């Protein structure tokens, strides 16, 4: 399914939020949630977007979906810049871009049956107008996600966490999208269920030629599912490359620290493992540090890092990192 033009291209995306609550009712400051992010996703590809809470990964996803209007930058999807489209023009585009949320408990309407939840977007987008045909379509989609026809009559609270996430996936699939933004789709699930959902996402991708933006904080899961990976820190991409290069030869000190913090379920191995435990915490995006945003926590920072904003540059072919020392 891969052709030359990317399915999605994010160009210099910026999203700032103004925070109220200043002492005299004015703006207390600007949160630079996303601060100049660029990447592209090819058709049929999975791009992993990793980072810690507050790094801007979810806001990036919401800007792509146009749930947030970007402060500046472009979101080019199937050749059109979505930031220039009005609400009416966006509606057909929204059908092609779907989202799967982290928490299947709060993202499904408790008063609707599973069948209604899946049928609603099909009706709204006018994909299948006939009611009986729609019911058939719902049953078909249920079987794609590993649920049974009788699940259509259940309510979300009658399902387990894993089954609810399958419903969330079914709802996204219902409108035949080309891009699905998966925002931490397995992190609220039990460990034994996570692998089921990941396998399902991979099967569906192969079957329907889907493209994924996979947002997550779990680096082991991201390695499993992604073709390429971008690492975000404080609103910026600090490293982006193919899966193998990122995990085998990371260039940015933050990526290295993240990788070394991932626990490995093997006490013998853990006992020998050297760990880079990062000091301090992620600074507030209200007041990001000057120079490289990572320098206050960076184990290898030098004087220049305090003053100079490192550019995301190609260090090896296809491997970009924002570190002057890389």
């Amino acid at each position, binding site marked *: 399914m891969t052709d030359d033009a990317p399915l999605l291209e994010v160009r210099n995306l910026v999203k700032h939020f103004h925070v109220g609550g200043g002492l005299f009712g004015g703006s207390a400051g600007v949160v630079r949630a996303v601060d100049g992010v660029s990447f592209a996703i090819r058709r049929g590809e999975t791009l992993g977007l990793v980072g*810690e*809470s507050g790094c801007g990964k979810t806001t990036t996803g919401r800007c792509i979906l146009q749930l947030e209007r970007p402060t500046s930058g472009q979101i080019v999807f199937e050749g059109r810049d979505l930031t220039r489209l009005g609400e009416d023009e966006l509606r057909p585009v929204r059908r092609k871009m779907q989202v799967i949320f982290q928490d299947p408990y709060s993202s499904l309407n408790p008063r609707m049956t599973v069948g209604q939840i899946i049928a609603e977007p099909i009706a709204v987008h006018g994909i299948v107008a006939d009611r009986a045909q729609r019911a058939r379509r719902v049953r078909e989609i249920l079987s794609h996600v590993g649920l049974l026809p009788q699940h259509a009559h259940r309510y979300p609270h009658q399902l*387990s*966490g*894993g*089954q609810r996430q399958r419903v969330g996936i079914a709802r996204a699939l219902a409108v035949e999208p080309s891009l699905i933004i998966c925002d931490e789709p397995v992190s609220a699930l*039990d*460990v*034994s*269920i*996570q*692998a*089921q959902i*990941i*396998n399902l996402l*991979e099967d569906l991708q192969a079957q329907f030629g889907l493209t994924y933006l996979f947002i997550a*904080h779990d*680096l*082991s*899961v991201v*390695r*499993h599912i992604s073709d390429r990976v971008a690492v975000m820190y404080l609103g910026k991409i600090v490293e982006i490359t193919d*899966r193998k290069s990122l*995990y085998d030869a990371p260039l940015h000190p933050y990526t290295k*620290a*993240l*990788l070394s*913090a*991932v*626990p*490995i*379920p*093997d*006490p*013998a*191995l*853990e*006992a020998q*493992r050297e*760990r880079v*435990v*990062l*000091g301090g*915490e*992620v600074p507030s995006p209200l007041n990001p540090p000057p120079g490289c945003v990572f320098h206050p926590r960076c184990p290898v920072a030098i004087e220049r890092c305090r003053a100079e904003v490192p550019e995301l540059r190609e260090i090896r072919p296809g491997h970009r990192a924002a570190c002057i020392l890389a």
Partner: protein
Amino acid sequence: MLHSAAVGTLLEVENLQTHFVTRSGVVRAVDDVSWDVDEGETVALVGESGCGKSVSALSIMRLVAGPAGRIVSGRIVFKGRDLLRLSEEAMRRVRGREIAMIFQEPMTSLNPVLTIGRQLTEGLEIHLGMAPVEARRRSVELLGMVGISDPERRLRQYPHQFSGGMRQRMMIAMSLACNPSLILADEPTTALDVTIQAQILELMRDLSRRFGVAMLIITHNLGVVARYADRVNVMYAGRIIERGTARELYAEPRHPYTLGLLRSVPRLDEPRRARLDPIEGQPPDLTRLGAGCAFAPRCTFRVERCVVEIPPLRPVGGRDHVSACWEADNLDRALARSAAAT
């Protein structure tokens, strides 16, 4: 009983049963469970949501919410005394002072309208009878111990002015305040970012070593405790299904559920697999458990006996390694067969 008393058993839970009465029936959240913690030892209780691991900790503190929840039987022997026989008054002196607890979400366990300082000094004044000035001095010391800089200023702040990681440090400081001999930590790092998780776990280990505090770490993530636990108990549907030293349990899991958990997660230290091996099916509904092993419906090693008779914990291999599986001795052979088949 499980462990020789000579090595200094601090806490011994014997045949504990904690039940909840719900509209759909009685849930045996903790169903005849026995385990123990030695002095200064770090023990893990691992399992998925609903397996009874948190209820186990609440039972020890006697904080199971009644009237729906009730400790039905068993003994919880702490330093030679059965906590279940103590008066409420005596139990209040055990909580916080001798056994402290750390929760997953520090924001909900801290009082938002009291300063950090007040929340720290309160325990010191009530449990240890310290004078306010002395309690203040000790609070400064405690914040320093858990790596919070500028403690004097921090004591005047409120929980919302702390980040998630700092709030968990503050919880650890509170738990250490009265020099307890046991800390129950219920998913202490689950709500935190990966890099902060590492900081908090390292801090807990250092403090446990420095002060000889024993720890019970409750988690759903086998990976998190590999580095920190001396012994690991794996729970499923209200029962312990495997226990062993961390090294043995990870190297040679002898229960299909433990094996399944270890195999279902992608690992950074191994080559990437084309497909993950999930445990199929769902965790069981605890009001509708069958006669046999609760894991049997999901188990690929199942034999006839599994659906009719609950397997007891039996010794397998090394010291203290026990597994509740009829097929525990045949897992290797079955695995070798399936590996040969693929």
